[in-house]
């Protein structure tokens, strides 16, 4: 119970109640819809890129506290990152939540560290990673669009 309280206090304080970048975006460069059919979490990720850098990222949707706060923190963490840096951060974050071993090329997670506690609640890991998978899909769609030009 104490671990849970600690996790939620860190996570929900702030980000769940006041999610950052929680808005639809007009004319995004990248967009993807994320859906967790088991629990009904739904997230839309909007993305603006300029010269290979994440200029703006926002989200919209409906999810639990872990899902919402993770999405909110993700948008903050990603702004200003290059596409490659964003991908690397996703890999590192995903690894931290799903694997016991240290990540080979450990990238500092910074404020995202607080979400590592989710690892103790395996059924909730997908809540914390939904926004990231959706971001990844939005980025890949954008990159796909570029490569077909």
């Amino acid at each position, binding site marked *: *119970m104490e671990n*849970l*309280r600690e996790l*939620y206090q860190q996570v*929900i304080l702030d980000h769940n109640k006041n999610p950052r970048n929680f808005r639809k975006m007009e004319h995004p460069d990248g967009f993807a819809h994320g859906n967790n059919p*088991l*629990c*009904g*979490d*739904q997230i839309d990720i909007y993305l603006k890129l300029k010269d290979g850098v994440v200029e703006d990222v926002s989200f919209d949707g*409906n*999810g*639990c*506290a*872990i*899902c*919402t706060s993770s999405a909110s923190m993700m948008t903050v963490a990603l702004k200003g990152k290059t596409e490659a840096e964003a991908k690397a951060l996703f890999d590192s974050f995903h690894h931290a939540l799903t694997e016991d071993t240290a990540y080979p090329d450990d990238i500092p997670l910074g404020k995202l560290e607080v979400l590592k506690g989710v690892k103790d*609640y395996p059924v*909730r890991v997908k*809540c914390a990673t939904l926004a990231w998978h959706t971001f990844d899909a939005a980025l890949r769609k954008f990159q796909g669009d570029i490569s077909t030009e």
Partner: protein
Amino acid sequence: MSNVAQYDVVSIRNDFPILSREVHGRPLVYLDNAASSQRPRQVIDAVRGLYEHSYSNVHRGVHQLSQESSRLYEDARVAVRGFINASCVHEVVFTRGTTESINLVAQSYARPLLKAGDEILITHMEHHSNIVPWQMVCQQTGAVLKVVPISDAGELEMGRFNEMLSDRTRLVSVVHVSNALGTVNPVKTIIDAAHAKGIPVLVDGAQAVPHIGVDVQELNADFYVFSGHKLYGPTGVGVLYGKEKLLNAMPPYQGGGDMILSVSFEKTEYNTLPYKFEAGTPNIAGVIGLGAAIEYVRKIGLGAIAAHEHGLLEYATKQLKQIEGLRIIGEAGQKAGLISFVLDAVHPHDIGTFLDADGVAVRTGHHCAQPVMDRYGVPATARASFAMYNTFKEIDVLAEAIVKTIEMFG
């Protein structure tokens, strides 16, 4: 009321070994019975006894074990017949569960019959397993799926139902007790109205048989389907009851062993009921465990169980309604023992995780009834569902855990 007074929940709980375990250092409070109930020792012993003493394949060998297993297997069918009061034993077909029973009817009864423009009538409160098999058969035949709406309270709009019964309707398929709302539907009225127009009715009884005495002849249901695992029996076994006349006219669902009388490469003669629909080696232990579960339920008595669970429902409804920021989804006049709810401040998943930390098991999510969630504009709910072994004290633990969760999210 004497039933209620004599109801010995302590001795019932002692029959369920799992109920004495702890979860996260707290006594388990198991309120996820609508997803799957727990097993009494009598069921566990029946399955163990089979494997330790009698097990062999059924309907085949002349040897002693095969005969013993076959007898136990067929005894379970006799138990099911009595439990739902089917007119004869061969109207009871064993399947993998409610889902397979519905798919069987969709493919073997409806599919050969349906023509483009024909209609299947279901309701807005169906489980996905009573939606998708009909969508599939509609795609295969060009038939159309029609959906009877439900009210804000979670009751079927019977006026609309009567209007929607058309001369194109070929089958009505309706849930007896809603797994997401707890609503008990007036299936007898529904069946009478459909029969007045010559339309057969399938009743999905998965959530009904553990809580309500079902008499398929009195209901005059054409098909009645349910699962073993919600009825204190094993997983992977269920029942399709069908009227003899309908089952006899239907082609087999799957081909294989046991469902044939003779096979040559030119011609195969199908077996008689119910074996025509039981291709392959069946879930022998599951069926025998289900028989033991039915025997256990009958010993305690569904009347007494229903009275106890109704008491739990009334008490839980009263306790939960006192919690500020809690909204109950589904307030039908006739309800079985489950409560779906949402909190203003907390998403159902977070509720589920916090209740679990207090040892309280509830289901959170869409309960395989997404159209119901959409109807009430919620992404998911938390659901506490009661069984014969739950206690009033457990309802208090639930209510306290909810209040604590709300405080946490302040």
